[in-house]
């Protein structure tokens, strides 16, 4: 079943008098429970694609169909609502609210979704327990290690049961060991039925996914299935 179906999308920025084609012509389909990595050097358009996939931005041209809804025509509020319900973001720099504790950070999407206090507390706690941070709920981001912060971010992404998890260089600010742990967490999330889109420029990280889409100059260079998937913590299997 298709969750994401983008057809011939383009994103054109006006820089001075010049038009910059950040994305020229891209078509992708992503199924439920897929684990896709998007790769490309800087300037390839992967950030732009991620923003469009994450409904943070809309394409200049083309169609973006998200679970049957035409996202390319949506206004700001509709996009916010899609982001809130259907997309869980995990960023390279974690992007947690610095002044709020872990629990509040995880609760935040539920607040915007209008979930009543008691229920959202329960769900946020469950999400934090799920990423192994049951004992860190009342800690603020600056009292947590990088890996722990990224776990909070993952918990926040998962708490609304979104259709996709969109991770932008999730291991970029972490050391190898901690990065591995996060990748293991993604593996686990994927196994329990979540769809994951991973944006990265590291081959090694991308090979944890089932499928790699390679971008160059705003076009898809290659869309391939990973034959030898890396399993976190060094063991290859499949």
């Amino acid at each position, binding site marked *: 079943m298709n969750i994401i179906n983008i057809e011939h999308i383009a994103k054109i920025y006006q820089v001075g008098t010049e038009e910059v084609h950040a994305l020229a012509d891209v078509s992708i389909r992503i199924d439920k429970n897929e684990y896709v990595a998007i790769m490309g050097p800087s300037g390839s358009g992967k950030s732009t694609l991620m923003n469009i996939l994450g409904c943070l931005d809309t394409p200049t041209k083309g169609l973006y169909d998200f679970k049957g809804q035409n996202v390319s025509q949506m206004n700001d*509020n509709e996009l916010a609502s899609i982001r809130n319900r259907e997309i869980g973001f995990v960023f390279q720099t974690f992007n947690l*609210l*610095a002044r709020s504790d872990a629990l509040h950070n995880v609760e935040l999407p539920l607040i915007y979704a209008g979930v009543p206090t008691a229920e959202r507390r329960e769900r946020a706690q469950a999400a934090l327990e799920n990423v192994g941070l049951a004992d860190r709920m009342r800690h603020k981001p600056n009292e947590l290690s990088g890996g722990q912060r990224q776990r909070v971010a993952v918990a926040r992404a998962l708490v609304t049961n979104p259709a996709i998890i969109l991770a932008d260089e999730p291991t970029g600010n972490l050391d190898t060991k901690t990065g591995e742990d996060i990748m293991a967490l993604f593996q686990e999330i994927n196994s329990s039925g979540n769809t994951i889109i991973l944006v990265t420029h590291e081959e090694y990280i991308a090979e944890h996914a089932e499928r790699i889409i390679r971008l160059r100059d705003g076009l898809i260079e290659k869309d391939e299935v990973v034959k030898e998937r890396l399993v976190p913590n060094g063991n290859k299997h499949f």
Partner: protein
Amino acid sequence: MKNFLFEVKEGLIISLKAIRANKARSVLTTLGIIIGVASVVLMSTAIKGINQSFQKGVASLGSDNLYIDKWAWFNNDIPWWEMRNRKDITMEDYKKYKELAKLPLAIAPRVNAFRTIKYEDKSVQSIAMTGTDHNYINTTNLTFSEGRFFTEFESKGGRAVVVLGSEIAKKLFPFGGAIGEFVKIGGYKFKVVGVLKEQGSWVMGSWNPDNQAYFPFQNVFKYFRSRHRGSVTIEVRAPNSQMVEAVKEEAISIMRRIRGLKYNEKDDFAINQQEGLLSNINKTVGVIQIAGLLITGLALFVGAIGIMNIMFVSVKERTKEIGIRKAIGAKRRTILGQFISEAAIICLIGGLIGLGVAIIGSMIIAQFDFPVTVDADAVILAVSISLITGVLSGFAPAYTASKLDPVDALRYE
């Protein structure tokens, strides 16, 4: 509706958290509002106090009273020199008027002299000594805390007896016991027969009954000034307020007769009334009000600009935070609401502190016999003004925040 309330509640909680996280800045921001609200509240209660004092002071004169006088209290049509050149109203004029007038309830003459009153080593200066007769008490609403007004017998005899206003009595006899004692007025001894209850108000100045002393008029002519210099005021009380006009008409015709005016000559006397005083007071209070509100409004405006400024800085500083919130699903109106309620809460806190300052300030001012009390109206005023200021000054920054593009905002460092 339930959804809306939920959003409002969550917005308020988020705003409170943000305010708490930026304590120092929030306190500085509220300073402008504290000063603004405190001055608005103080000013409005002060104006109310002044107004009430005026009303009370005027009321103490009695609303059914007329004052036949050489000088008009408020009449800008007659040049002052014309009034100055009028013949004085004499005691003879008073006696004739009293004989002829049928309508008034009570009539009394009044002549004034300003003198120092002494008792032992204590003294009060420049007291308006009112020389009058025993009928005077019936033209006023004066009440006594001790003793009585002087009697017909004392009045006719021009005895050296005196009735003291409450303020004077308080200063000369701080522990009471004034009755029967002798005070010295301009060097002459007078026996205290009565002390008035407090009744006037400070705005009346020397004419506040609390600051006056009363004795038989003959004493004025005997000790303080010639019978032939200075004008007498005739105080007239109408039986009731419906009769005031009739009493006035009668007074005009009698006075014209006494003064021997021809039909084509203008009145050379004035019939003064409390009403004129009131309208004059209302004009004065109105001017004070406008000036006061302008000044305090300015203070508040400066406070509001401060809030707006800080909120703009805050939005800029928290661009990343706004980006995060938007990325995880905050709608435009959510962000708008968050920042507006932040500004409103800061202002409300400032307003409440300002109110506290105003209450303390009014207590201090009240120590100087200036009647100010912060009442429920002032509380409502302070709260609503600070809320409105918050919402208005928070709107522009909040709108800017709500319009931020999530992609740009997330990239902001």
